């Protein structure tokens, strides 16, 4: 069963269609599937609904799909840092569903784990609760949130073996595992494909069962806010 593809475009071949629902990993510009996003731009797939914590910046990450008007709706927790997003949203061209960050992560994990709904305290008594079932457990109110199942997941990992076992690096892990879980098909881009058997089976973050296609490539890995401290002289 061949999972490794030569390019991001080939890895997405046959998986894209207008109006589809995509779940994407990444937080800010950290750990985003930048090669697959670029390939979706090149494919020109339209009317996309995308569940992703953020929507990139104007010229990088999911922001490039805004510029080309390929996104119909975003499901996100935070969409600052993107002027084009705000323009399209305020003009009514773009739909937006805000999800609390943890609710979004759990909705993805739930959808991937066959859980169609779960109860959470997050958002009780706020606009987030509007239209949602409220249920009391042990005297406290919770709202029902739905699991997400996407047509396609796009994620970015550090290393993979050819069976799709993935390892992430530092905080670039973030939404990638839950996003990968919730897709009917999942395509992963990685910095390095290593030989089978070279990943310690105890240390695999996401087993290959969740990953259907893999592509290796060069990543820009742009930094959104470079903050540093000075080396103090002793």
């Amino acid at each position, binding site marked *: 069963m061949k999972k490794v593809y030569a390019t991001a475009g080939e890895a997405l071949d046959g998986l894209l269609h207008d109006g589809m629902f995509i779940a994407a990993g990444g*937080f*800010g*510009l*950290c750990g985003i599937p930048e090669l697959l996003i670029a390939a979706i731009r090149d494919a020109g797939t339209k009317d996309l609904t995308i569940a992703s914590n953020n929507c990139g910046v104007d010229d990088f990450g999911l922001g490039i799909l805004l510029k080309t008007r390929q996104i119909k709706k975003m499901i996100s*927790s935070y969409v600052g840092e993107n002027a084009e997003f705000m323009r399209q949203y305020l003009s009514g061209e773009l739909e937006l569903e805000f999800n609390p960050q943890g609710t979004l*992560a759990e909705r993805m994990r739930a959808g991937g784990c066959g859980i169609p709904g779960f109860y959470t305290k997050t958002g009780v008594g706020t606009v987030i609760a509007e239209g949602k079932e409220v249920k009391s457990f042990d005297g406290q109110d919770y709202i029902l949130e739905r699991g997400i199942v996407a047509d396609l997941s796009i994620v970015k990992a550090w290393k993979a073996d050819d069976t799709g076992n993935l390892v992430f690096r530092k905080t670039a892990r973030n939404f990638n595992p839950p996003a990968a879980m919730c897709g009917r098909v999942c395509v992963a881009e990685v910095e390095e494909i290593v030989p089978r058997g070279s990943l310690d089976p105890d240390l695999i973050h996401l087993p290959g069962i969740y990953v259907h296609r893999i592509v290796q490539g060069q990543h820009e890995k*742009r930094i959104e806010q470079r903050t540093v401290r000075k080396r103090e002289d002793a």
Partner: protein
Amino acid sequence: MAWDRNQMAARAAQELEDGMYVNLGIGIPTLVANYVGDKDITLQSENGMLGMGPFPFEGEEDPDLINAGKQTITELDRTAYFDSATSFGMIRGGKIAAAILGAMEVAENGDLANWMIPGKLVKGMGGAMDLVAGVGRVIVVMDHTNKAGESKVLRECTLPLTGKSVVDRIITNLGVLDVVPGGLKIVECAEGVTEEELRAATEATIVG
């Protein structure tokens, strides 16, 4: 006379006890890390990290290592990384002892508003709703009044809520107040601030 940003952060740091896992919001709350002293505090960054270290030295920034404010940071010898579902699992599950957060408004029943102003640009709540609903103790650090001099400590919030009845303690430039049955209780006044001044600057009901 009142506390400045650093004094507010220093006061907030007194809320933290040895062994606590804590989440600090953006702004003044971030400064709290400078005042924990010898206490063994582990900072969570909700994008998937426990044991957040300081900013990196110039040239050592790692694009794979950022905090929830998307700033480059470093790791410590106690650090562990995990995915976002796990991260918010520990937040929602009450494993984080305290969150110290900024606010636009706090009400006397503990309601908190800090994520949107209708009619203005809405960026989203990020992890704030999860944090205030989930962590053990919510401590708000903010200026007592807005730029127009109006109280931000209110009978009822006027802005859309981040969480309902979630705030435990409010630390402002004028003092410290606790959310208690019936209203707010003055815990202490900032240096040079009288109780009368604190009461006058507060719209919320003060009890006790």
